[in-house]
């Protein structure tokens, strides 16, 4: 696999609280890696460490296979938009871009104008950033992150608070950057449905820990299918399923959802019949990404 970014047990602690706990992610070059997690799960902490804004308590990360923290020339290959975009409100879009461009030694106005066109802000003229809508600010934030021609773009909740039009525009920009410019994107969000439309790889993070990391195909195959079982005695059924070695299952309403070994419905039925438990219904059904996330992180009570 060609990874542009790997983290190795990256940990950040504040006192006794572990905001990120031995997180190891592997971001493939040219893809969009979606970090899924509720607020406070550790997404921003992880991104800040990778973006050079925060020092890891332990662990390290590599960009292009070289230590990302200690290699000065690695950081300019990373563009970040973490939390709100850092803009001077009394400056225009072009002046904000110019400010960062000067810091990185770029003096090409045409290049900056091109960036504004890329994010749909070419015609903002003398309008100051403080007069921009939230969507415009987020897009300008992305343009700022692109100034230094990064190979890896880190975007923390870029669609937060955007209206449907803004979300659609942001999605188009992300697809353009990934497909046309070959930029790898690490994006976090708790809007799972929206993330599922852009990401090609997923990492599910909860309470500072990375619970799962999988490709779009793997995730969709898992979360789209489950074995839904209804019997005359749910309690005993759970015991028997446990004895059969099933572990990824939950009781939801009056049914048991099994998320593994979906082709073993016959064996389950036989085992239940032997225990004098009546099988009322057993069928393979699909579910949303959101349900899978809840199942993985401990249910809706965590939300």
């Amino acid at each position, binding site marked *: 696999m060609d990874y542009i970014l790997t983290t190795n047990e990256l940990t950040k602690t504040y006192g006794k609280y572990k905001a990120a706990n031995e997180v190891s992610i592997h971001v493939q070059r040219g893809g969009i890696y979606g970090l899924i997690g509720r607020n406070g799960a550790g997404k921003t902490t992880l991104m*800040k460490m990778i*973006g*050079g*804004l*925060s*020092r890891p308590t332990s662990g390290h990360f590599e960009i292009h296979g070289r230590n990302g*923290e*200690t*290699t*000065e020339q690695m*950081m*300019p290959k*990373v563009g*970040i938009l*973490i*939390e*709100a*975009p*850092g*803009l*001077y*409100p*009394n*400056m225009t879009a072009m*002046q904000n871009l*110019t*400010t*960062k461009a*000067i*810091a*990185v*030694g770029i003096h090409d106005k045409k290049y900056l104008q091109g960036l504004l066109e890329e994010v749909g802000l070419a015609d903002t003229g003398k309008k100051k950033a403080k007069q921009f809508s939230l969507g415009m600010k987020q897009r300008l934030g992305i343009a*700022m*992150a692109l100034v*230094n021609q990064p190979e890896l773009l880190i975007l923390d909740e870029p669609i937060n608070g955007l209206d449907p039009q803004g979300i659609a525009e942001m999605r188009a920009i992300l697809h353009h950057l990934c497909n046309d410019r070959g930029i790898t994107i690490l994006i976090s969000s708790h809007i799972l449905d929206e993330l599922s439309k852009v990401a090609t790889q997923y990492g599910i993070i909860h309470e500072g820990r990375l619970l799962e990391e999988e490709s779009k195909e793997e995730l969709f195959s898992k979360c789209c299918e489950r074995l839904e079982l209804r019997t005359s005695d749910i309690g005993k059924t759970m015991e028997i399923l446990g004895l059969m070695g099933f572990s990824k299952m939950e009781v939801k309403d009056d049914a048991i959802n099994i998320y593994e070994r979906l082709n073993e419905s016959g064996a389950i039925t036989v085992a239940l019949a032997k225990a004098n438990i009546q099988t009322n219904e057993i069928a393979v059904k699909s579910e949303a990404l959101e349900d899978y996330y809840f199942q993985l992180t401990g249910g809706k009570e965590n939300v």
Partner: protein
Amino acid sequence: MFNVFRMHMYRVSRSRSTYILAGLMFVFLLLTFGLAFIIFDDPLGLNVTQAFMTANGSAATISPAVLHRFFIQSNDSVIILLTIFGVLLTYSDFSKGFVKNTYSMFEHKSKLVLAKWGALVACVTVTYVALSLLGLGLGALLRSFEPGEWDAYLRSFVVVYICLVSMLTLVFMITSLFKSPVGGMVIGLIIATGIFQTLEQLIDLLIAKLSGADMEAALEGMLGMGSGEKIFRISDYCLDNVYLSYSASMGNADTIRTIVVALVYMALALGLTMLLSEKKDVRC
């Protein structure tokens, strides 16, 4: 690093507050000139010149060094406005979150601190030179102005400049470390108003008492009356006191002490800011 310095100069040049502060400084300088005219040329017959300078025969004259002290060193508005400028320059990229754009680009954050401090010093230098020249030009319009003693003026120009940069480095440090404009402003006000001078002098008296020195001589030395007894004085090593009490008529030893104290404060403040920037996470 030079690029980051240029970036700060660019944003300062684009900031409206820069021009507002420059305008205010100009206004205050004109007001100070009005005050100088009333005090030194005495068109109202108030006869208050004696309170500010030693009479030279029957006609009091003002040397360039005295003008510099009057227009720049003892001018509270200069220190306060420079403090406000220093806080704005230091704090604005933290408050707007812009710091995220630059801090993510560099492994060694101390270089960014140094570049920002460099921009602050560059701006202060330009302002200081402009104010000094303007003060000198306005002062030359006074009837009582007497050109001469340029070596004293030059010495005063350099010492006051070093002290001002040192004080603004303290403001820079406080603002950078606490990511708040309040601390820096308070430091500026303390220095401008000399609030702590009284406390420092009380400590000096206590030290003199405890060391069994001749209290009368110690007091005279503290007030600049007579030579005074040579005892250790904490106020001799406090930046606010060395700045406010510096005079071009001081001897070489005191001038060198003033410069050394200012440089030590500057080095410590800048060094600490750079060191902690390497250790601390970026809060924005």
